[in-house]
């Protein structure tokens, strides 16, 4: 795991590149692998001047297309990537959002915390989390949805 998270500026770029990849490949594990590849490639240098985030996303775009060819998925991806690239220029990752999320996570209910930790910390499938908390898959997925929504609202509240 490459920890570029130490530098606040790089942290923002890293998050946005991660989001850009995840929005394109729709698979968390693949997205994390591709993110690592992009950061590794970026760490070897090559950036001269201009927009560092756009440069990283260009590396990511090449990796995503390569990945799509390898998995023979989503031939329509090229056009979608153009739209996502445009969106990436508009959507921001302010530090305040990260901080707000940190606060909001601290206030999760016990069940909400268990589901979120299972999903994001232990990276378990919903089926396994459902078994662990003694609920059905549908109920667990509903909890996941509710917690995400609650977190989103909490973050928005803190930011306004």
């Amino acid at each position, binding site marked *: *795991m*490459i*920890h*570029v*998270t*130490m*530098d*606040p500026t*790089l*942290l923002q770029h890293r*998050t*946005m590149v*991660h*989001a*850009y990849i*995840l*929005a394109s490949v*729709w*698979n*968390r594990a693949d997205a*994390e692998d591709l993110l690592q590849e992009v*950061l590794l490639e970026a*760490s070897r240098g090559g950036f001269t001047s201009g927009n560092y985030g756009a440069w990283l996303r260009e590396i990511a775009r090449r990796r995503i297309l390569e990945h799509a060819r390898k998995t023979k*998925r*989503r031939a*329509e*991806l*090229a*056009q*979608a990537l*153009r*739209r*996502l690239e*445009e*969106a*990436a220029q*508009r*959507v921001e*990752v302010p530090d305040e*959002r*990260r901080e707000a*999320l*940190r606060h909001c*996570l*601290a206030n999760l209910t*016990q069940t909400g915390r268990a589901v*979120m*930790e299972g999903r*994001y*910390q232990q990276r378990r499938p*919903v089926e396994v989390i459902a078994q662990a908390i003694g609920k059905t898959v549908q109920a667990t997925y509903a909890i996941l*949805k509710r917690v*995400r929504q609650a*977190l*989103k609202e909490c*973050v928005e509240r803190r930011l306004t």
Partner: protein
Amino acid sequence: MNDVLYRAVDGMLSEAEEAELAKRLGEEPDLASEMLKIARDEALLAEAFARRRTTRRLPQKSGGFGWFLAAAAAVLLGIVGIILLPGGRELDYDRARVKELTAEGATAVDRNDFERGEALYRQALELAEKHDELRGQAASIRATLADVSRMKSEHAQALADWRALVAEFRRSEYSETKEGIQNFLSRARALQKAHEPLGLPWTKADPKEGPEKSIAGMIEIADAEYKEALASARREGFQAMRARIEMLFLKEGTEDFAGAIAAWQTYIDTTRDTEGKTKAPGALMDVNRRAFGAWDRLKKKAETLSRDEAVRVLKNALPRFVGCRFNETDIEAEIRAKIEELKR
């Protein structure tokens, strides 16, 4: 639409849905923006939990938080590419001191001495913030401080929860009912599961140290109480079943032996209680014995009646004896035969 986007990032779309969404993303800029915002929030969540994963697990594996800091520092210097410029003795001194303080802070956190850990990290942060060259370290220390603060409050909450559980165990009110014990056990197990990753003493203590030192010891005792309550409930279950069958099917004068036999047979087939399984066949045989006695009386009564009346009485009684057998006698078959005989 949000639901489809969330299902997409969760990898839950069908191939057809994926193709449709990819097409729409290429055509609809607003949808692409929405997708990117969702993916951004997911990326932030992944980062938040990845940080927890790192701060919690590395110390356990390596035996010291210092290892994590050393690795983080190496990564910071090597990969992120922060170049350490020669900036005079003060910078060198402060850099070395930051390293020492964070290592000491990590050791304190490892010992769950969060107050001292926080104080050491704060000192380190103060020094790091003096130099532009150390801004990366400062950011890292700030993040660690936030983690330490969260760990501190998690540990404080865990201690309060454990003390409350011990107090409840001492009062032992929970053990008055099977449901009470079950509820207590499930809370104790949930607490054990939640506290184990924190490495708290009561999760590591040997059960032999007793229920007030070891959560596993407490669960062992409550589990034994639960099993005993369960066994007792099952015993009562057999008695309760017998009383219910007597009341429903075997009231004197209107006995429905067929219904009683079916009820006992269902109980035998479905109960998981060993004692119930052992006793129920005896109860079933008793019903058959009583049916045999009732049939004997009925037979004698039929002999005193006219043929037509006897046939009517036996036909009416037949459903109550369906499936009844005693020793080698098939009571139902005998009644049917008697009816046929009287009809002739």
